[in-house]
């Protein structure tokens, strides 16, 4: 890579587009900053005036509930003004190009775009094209990356298991179509975990997935051995109709996480899921709602982690020098 557009001339965070290319120090700084927003006594997040007077646009070209609302809450906790734009029902329907949408919003003096888009690279494109004072945060682009989700998962893991170097992490399910999985694999490797293991049938794994720095298993029972952290991925229904899988029930039988299979992992293993979950498809309700599940903790942590990323990006953009 010739140059990382995510960093400014001093090597500080400017845009947050993909985990790939960041170093451990920067990821750790994000996690530490996020921790500073959380009240250690009750876990509540205080409102801080860091981004007062700033305007943040949530630019969502794809549907989202969790990600959009936690970004909105994070922005409000930072005292910024937030504009939510649901573009699927807006100007692109009238034929306006992505770039023209951006130009128009720039003309309204915004300071940050939080972008979710169905096309890989959309957030990069906006970061390349937008005015220099504007920061861009990727809230999920195509099958490429979902870096804030990965960071909130890292935050959740660190809360419960502070030493990454000892951890064996399994990511289970549809790795092929998952931008979450790609970002998590990068983040886990940068933070130096002992092992990242992907568990899925070959139809749901990218070709040469090992080159991402993972070990591979096609069998959940074998794959769960010695695992400290289990990350389940959502299985979308349309995968059944495109000859990737024979059916939901067979998938659940082979790769669905049940209480019984959970026992194969380490006894104190934690269970994570980026949501939304498909009960009875990739995960049994007893596990999703069970003691080892930290799925809702992940959601809560989304606010502090997104606050940290937004604050750091704006801080190093010359805006808050």
């Amino acid at each position, binding site marked *: *890579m*010739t*140059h990382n*557009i995510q960093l400014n001339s001093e090597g500080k965070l400017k845009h947050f587009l*993909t985990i790939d290319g960041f170093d451990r120090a920067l990821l750790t700084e994000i996690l530490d900053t996020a921790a500073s927003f959380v009240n250690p006594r009750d876990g509540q997040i205080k409102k801080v005036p860091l981004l007062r007077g700033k305007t943040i646009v949530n630019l969502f070209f794809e549907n989202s509930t969790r990600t959009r609302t936690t970004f909105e809450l994070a922005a409000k906790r930072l005292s910024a003004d937030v504009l939510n734009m649901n573009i699927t029902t807006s100007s692109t329907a009238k034929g306006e*190009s*992505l*770039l023209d949408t951006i130009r128009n919003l720039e003309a309204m003096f915004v300071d940050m775009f939080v972008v979710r*888009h169905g*096309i*890989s*690279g*959309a957030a*990069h*494109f906006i970061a*390349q*094209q937008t005015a220099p004072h504007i920061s861009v945060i990727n809230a999920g*682009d*195509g099958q490429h990356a979902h870096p804030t989700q990965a960071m909130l998962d890292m935050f959740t893991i660190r809360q419960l298991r502070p030493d990454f170097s000892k951890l064996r992490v399994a990511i289970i399910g549809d790795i092929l179509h998952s931008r979450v999985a790609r970002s998590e694999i990068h983040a886990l490797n940068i933070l130096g975990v002992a092992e990242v293991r992907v568990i899925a049938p070959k139809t749901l794994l990218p070709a040469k997935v090992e080159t991402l720095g993972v070990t591979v298993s096609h069998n959940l029972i074998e794959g769960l051995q010695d695992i400290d952290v289990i990350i389940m991925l959502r299985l979308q229904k349309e995968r059944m109709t495109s000859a990737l899988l024979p059916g939901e029930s067979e998938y659940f039988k082979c790769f669905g996480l049940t209480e019984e299979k959970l026992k194969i992992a380490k006894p104190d293993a934690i269970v994570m899921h980026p949501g939304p979950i498909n009960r009875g498809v990739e995960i049994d309700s007893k596990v999703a709602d069970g003691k080892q599940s930290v799925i809702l903790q992940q959601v809560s942590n989304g606010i502090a982690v997104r606050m940290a990323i937004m604050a750091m990006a704006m801080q190093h953009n010359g805006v808050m020098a």
Partner: protein
Amino acid sequence: MTQLHIQHGRIIDPANKIDRVGDIYIVDGKIAALFEPPENFQADTVIDATGKVVCAGFIDLSTRLRDMGHSRKGTFKSETRAAASAGITTLCLQPDTRPAMDAASIAEYIKDLAEKANYPQIYPIAALTQKLDGVELSSMLSLKQAGCIAVSNANEPVKNLLILRRAMEYAASHDLLYICRPNDFSLSNKETIALAECLELAELTGCRVHFGQLSCKRSVIKIHQAKKYGLNVSADVAIHQLHLTENDIIPFDSAYHVLPPLRTEADKKHLRQGLANGTINSICSDHQPHDLDAKLGAFPETESGVSSLETLLPLMLKLVAKRVISLEQGIAALTHQPAQILRLPSGALTVGFSADVCIFDPELTWQINNDTWQSRGINTPFWGQTMTGRVTHTLQAGKIIFSLNN
């Protein structure tokens, strides 16, 4: 009688195994003699080629000149000017014109556009199937009679193998070359499986097949095996595939969006070896000029392709500098080899041949910028870079169609 004298150049003509300094004598648009003047020769024009290389004009097997429904991207005038400045004297036009090259009238219209651009040596490649949809055969014989030099389905795969077999049988019946760009969209641009199928059909149908714009290691291996086995096949590679890999892509920079996509170091290495050992016969530009809007967007939404006529020679010379191939091999891959594939009496400085000549200075450096670039498409990942090697004169049928500093 027009007479033209090219003096003191290093004449490199791989077809005739010539590499020495000397003169070329051109009379009435044809090569009249080499080294010694023909009788009664009185030059009207003299070109001093001291310190330069003189070779046959380049033959490009895969270009798009746009125009028709695409004139924002390029016109015959702008793109043939770029071709002339790049030493290219013969162009084969891919059939994915708009509308597609599936009717004799379109081929005739192309010939008209070529005449008007004062660059007559443009050969359309006919669509293999109507509208390139892979369903119904095109009128290949009429298209051939209208001047098409081969048939191809461009980047569109013929999904039904029975239709592909019949199309190849029909092409073979009229002694038409099938140019196959192996591609299977359903396997996300996998080329080797489509290539293997086409090799089987080449044997079955007896159709002459040329594989265009190869990009994979395993394609080179398969072509090597097929040639060894005795199949009548040939292959080319687009010049950028010999230089760039996935590692060179600036993240999501659409200038690197090409089809087939940039692949791995191992693929590039095998493509280079294949060119060096003759498995790959020729190099093409795969020129695809675009307007700015076509490249302005999120990477997968932009149009693929590089504007590449003008980097063809310097990038070939870079392979010579890196000792991947010899200069003679590089020139053969741009002249004699494509002429053989197309069965054209050109690509060589043989006495009696039409005087298609390229004169270039192998040491001259130049920067790619708005002042030097001729194509309307500035979509090249090499923009702003300094290149070594530049064409100084181009002759098409004895007529000077380009001269540097003019």
